[in-house]
């Protein structure tokens, strides 16, 4: 019987294993899916069970991304691990101007079922070049599915869907989520894209968050509950497709919106959710929308400076309190 609770990393590896077992055209380009942290040994199972379907590529992100895309066009289902999310910038044209556009520009004739995986986020000591969250930039590139699991259960179900998708999919794992533990459903199955998950119900304010920020939002909500404020935490789980209906319905109930995002502020995920609600849910709003995002700076190595610019539970709670001030 599969475990009833699991770490995020273990759930991700389970999904990879199940996908490799189910479809012999699935393979892994890049083997350090869990980075270099303590969970990395969980990948040994994949390596020993599917030695011919996992390969260590050269440090050549553009080349391996293109290889994954071309392979997908030719009928394979590769899972390309790009390592730290910043390295995806070396494969940018491949992701946003090859994978994203091929189906469209062939009038629907060519499918590109490739999955890109990367470890995103402010990870502690990553400094300016290793702390990125490219999901906002990717959302401005139509044609990519964008997936951001925030719990072990979602990591399992969404990874399965990513590997079954006929579209290019970017699966972003926050480096700080790998080690968290969480409950797993008794029946393990794929989670369809485009269905937001209300991670906590509440009547007073809607907090929309993704990836690690969902965990921080839940922590903030617990604190706020002690102050009599009931926050609803909505996790879109996939940005593309986006479940606008669930977000709008929540704001309709609560009348207030805080959006949390680890991308830099300008043109980030928080901005997009805020703009969507300002446009389509304007009449529900009883207060200004609040964005809690990374400050518009690179990340410093010094820990206190890293923390100063990055959202956390305290900053989220403070933003909510401003609405009830």
């Amino acid at each position, binding site marked *: 019987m599969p475990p009833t609770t699991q770490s995020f990393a273990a759930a991700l590896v389970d999904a990879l294993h199940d996908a490799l077992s189910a479809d012999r055209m699935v393979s892994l380009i890049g083997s350090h899916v869990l980075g270099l942290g303590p969970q990395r040994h969980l990948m040994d199972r994949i390596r020993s069970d599917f030695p011919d379907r996992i390969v260590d590529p050269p440090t050549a992100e553009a080349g391996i991304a293109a290889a994954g895309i*071309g392979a997908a066009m030719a009928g394979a289902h590769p899972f390309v691990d790009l390592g730290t999310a910043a390295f995806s910038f070396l494969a940018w044209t491949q992701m946003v101007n090859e994978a994203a556009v091929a189906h469209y520009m062939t009038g629907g004739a060519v499918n590109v079922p490739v999955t890109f995986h990367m470890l995103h986020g402010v990870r502690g000591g990553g400094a300016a070049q290793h702390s990125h969250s490219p999901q906002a930039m990717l959302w401005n590139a139509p044609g990519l599915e964008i997936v951001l699991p925030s719990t072990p259960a979602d990591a399992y179900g969404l990874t399965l869907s990513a590997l079954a998708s006929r*579209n290019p999919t970017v699966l972003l794992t926050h480096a700080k989520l790998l080690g968290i533990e969480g409950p797993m459903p008794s029946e393990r199955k794929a989670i369809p894209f485009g269905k937001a998950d209300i991670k906590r119900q509440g009547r007073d304010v809607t907090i929309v968050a993704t990836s690690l920020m969902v965990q921080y939002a839940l922590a903030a909500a617990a604190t706020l509950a002690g102050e009599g404020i009931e926050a609803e935490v909505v996790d879109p789980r996939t940005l593309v497709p986006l479940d606008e209906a669930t977000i709008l319905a929540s704001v309709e109930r609560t009348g207030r919106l805080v959006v949390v995002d680890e991308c830099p502020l300008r043109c980030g995920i928080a901005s997009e959710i805020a703009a969507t609600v300002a446009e389509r849910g304007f009449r529900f709003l009883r207060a200004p929308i609040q964005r809690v995002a990374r400050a518009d700076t690179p990340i410093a190595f010094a820990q206190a400076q890293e923390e100063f610019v990055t959202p956390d539970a305290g900053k989220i709670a403070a933003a909510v309190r401003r609405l009830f001030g």
Partner: protein
Amino acid sequence: MSHALPESLAWSLLETMLLMRRFEEAVVRLAQEGHFKGHYHLYIGEEATGAAAIATLGERDHLATTHRNHGHVIARGADPGRALAEILGRANGLLGGRGGTLHLSDPALGFLATSAIVGGCISLSVGGGYACKQRGDGSLTMALFGDGALEEGVAFEALNIAALWKLPVVFLCENNSVNAWGSAKGGFPTLNHAAKDLCSIPQSVGIPAVRVDGADAAAVHDAVSEAAARCRTGGGPGFVEAITERWPGSNPLWPDPVTGVTDLRMATTDMALPQEHHNWFRHHDPVLRLARLLAAGGKDSADRIHAIDAQQQRRMAKAIDFALAGAMPAAEAALDHVFA
């Protein structure tokens, strides 16, 4: 011609090359008549390379091509009417008018999506080879790209990956820059590479590489067949550099059909060649070169050449009608096909 082609192959290549040539002549005409706008790239002068290389492929093989793709798509057997319709952005085009000349391809014939980003084609082809190897059915992927692609770093990464993983990829570099190498001060340089010999690049990562005369169908066919055979038996990738003379109508901006509509009598009779572009007609035009070789068979051969050409011209006339009769795609359909 360095080696002899089997006669039947030579005739079938001539047929393909004539269709390629008549196709491009139609493209120029339609562009000049204003039937489509934007930049386009003709394959004139490179027909022997594409025809001979693609003739070595089997049904399950994949191809990746680039901005200069018309000839490749035709040589692989795409319907010229639908290809032309695509260039005109019509709904009955190969891609429903979505791709146009820059992204022309025929996915049903094994083409990957055509990238017009320099370096795109060579890098995607490595993935094609990866899938072929995974299928394990002896198929391969052929990349057809210009010399300029080797200025992009991703081309180097692609060569390294293909070599490391012994992928079945035939890298066919169509080098049309031999006389335009280096920085043409004040003009448009066509190849900015410090390498004196492009083959040294694949060779630096251990890929066997050979340079051939790209206007010599037999030489191309030989070199590509050898590389393909190695691919199919697990020997890893091969690289062929096909050198072609730049067609005098090549222009980095818009092609200029200065050599006119191809007159096969320049090959089949001893009609005087025009003074202007004499060298081109005499030595470089690959269609005339192959026709001349076949015409050496005598009067019957000459007649056969003209008969094939007449047939291809009729085919192109129908293709033009088909393309021009095509409807424009519906504007609202622009929202379709973002995702499968």
